[in-house]
């Protein structure tokens, strides 16, 4: 493919999903700079491998690459990094569930703000293996099949992770509401 056609195709098919790419990176990595780096690296890789992409959903394809770039970043040993790469999820799920104690009663002025980003905070604290499927499905609208391709897991795993992730999130939100209000 001549490179100017490739560039045009990239701008038409991939660039519209740059927000989604950055959003996923932010939710996986948290840090804005790391997220920008990962999203950039992934997007440029998508450009280089554009010729190999034959599918119909460029967004799902790009997000799979973003997810890989993020995991590469997480595996890079970095001092002070709190985030660990995903495991099978059992340990982190238990840890998350154990940590679900009602939040300390905030000052009244803070309550409103507190409630407004409640879901954000609970999602942020969700273990990464659950958080990534919730973000891919509930924020980016990917089908289970596409999520499975992105995270390299069979449909059954996608379904159970999403289900457990949402259940944890639901619990976290309701605990915080009771604790905070």
């Amino acid at each position, binding site marked *: 493919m001549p490179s100017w056609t490739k560039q045009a195709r990239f701008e038409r098919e991939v660039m519209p999903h*740059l927000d989604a790419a950055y959003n996923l990176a932010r939710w996986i990595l948290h840090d804005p700079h790391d997220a920008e780096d990962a999203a950039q690296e992934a997007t440029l890789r998508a450009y280089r491998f554009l010729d190999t992409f034959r599918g119909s959903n460029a967004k799902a394809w790009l997000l799979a690459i973003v997810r890989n770039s993020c995991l590469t970043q997480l595996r890079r040993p970095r001092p002070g990094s709190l985030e660990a790469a995903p495991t099978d999820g059992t340990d982190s799920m238990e840890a998350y569930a154990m940590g679900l104690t009602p939040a300390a009663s905030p000052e009244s002025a803070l309550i409103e703000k507190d409630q407004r980003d409640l879901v954000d905070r609970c999602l942020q604290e969700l273990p990464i293996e659950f958080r990534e499927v919730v973000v891919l499905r509930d924020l980016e609208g990917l089908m289970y099949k596409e999520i499975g391709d992105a995270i390299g897991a069979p449909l059954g795993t996608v379904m159970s992770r999403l289900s457990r992730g949402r259940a944890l999130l639901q619990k976290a939100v309701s605990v915080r509401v009771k604790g905070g209000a």
Partner: protein
Amino acid sequence: MADTHVVEQHVLEQIDGYLDGEFDLATSLAIERHLEACPPCRTEADSRRALLARIAAETTRFAAPDTLRHRVLRVIAAEAGGSPWPARRMPRWVLLVASFALVAVLSSGTTAYLMRGNPAPGVEEQVVASHVRSLLVAGHLTDVASSDEHTVKPWFNHRLDFAPPVSDWAAQGFPLLGGRLDYVDGHTVAALVYGHRRHLINLFVWPDGAARPQPLELSARQGYAVVHWSDGAMVYWAVSDLNGGELRDFCEGLRGGTPNR
């Protein structure tokens, strides 16, 4: 009793797939039947549905910073154009035609037209600043909050010496949220506010002093998409955190006329 319990467990695990529309019709119908008959499962499905609604409404979707967008485009332009390939691969006649066209443009009055036609950078800056301000200042977004064009239109008519076209595009997914007066480029202008999913669009409208129609032009500033055009009677500036393509499509629709319902 034990049997019921097993069935119940089974459906609880399938609620997410069911709500996400991932099952075939037969399975979905079976789950639906079970939910009708089983209050605990139904409660679970309802609260899950409520959670999904909260996630959709309240979770932050981080927009790619402008710096990222520009950097990616720059690197790709360099990779595409930096090698000798594109020039060689591009048919010779394309370059020839392009150079003739350039000469023709430069040597005709068209240049003056194009230069005048280009929106003043100051205006773009102002509408983006106005868009940002409308989001930051509580209660500043709309002075008249209504999805009813028949409420918004007369509201403007009483306050402006021109009548901005007001239409609701809810059927296309862009509901009209209201309007306010704003001040851009030395004019009092109409600002119409539209929503799309969780994004907001400010559409600034004022009379076209030059009375010169201009085609849609998409640009980006500070991470916001900006679309500008004129139909000869009114100048339009749309600003949003939507992606550029979506904003342009919406503006094409606006420019095309009244929405289909």
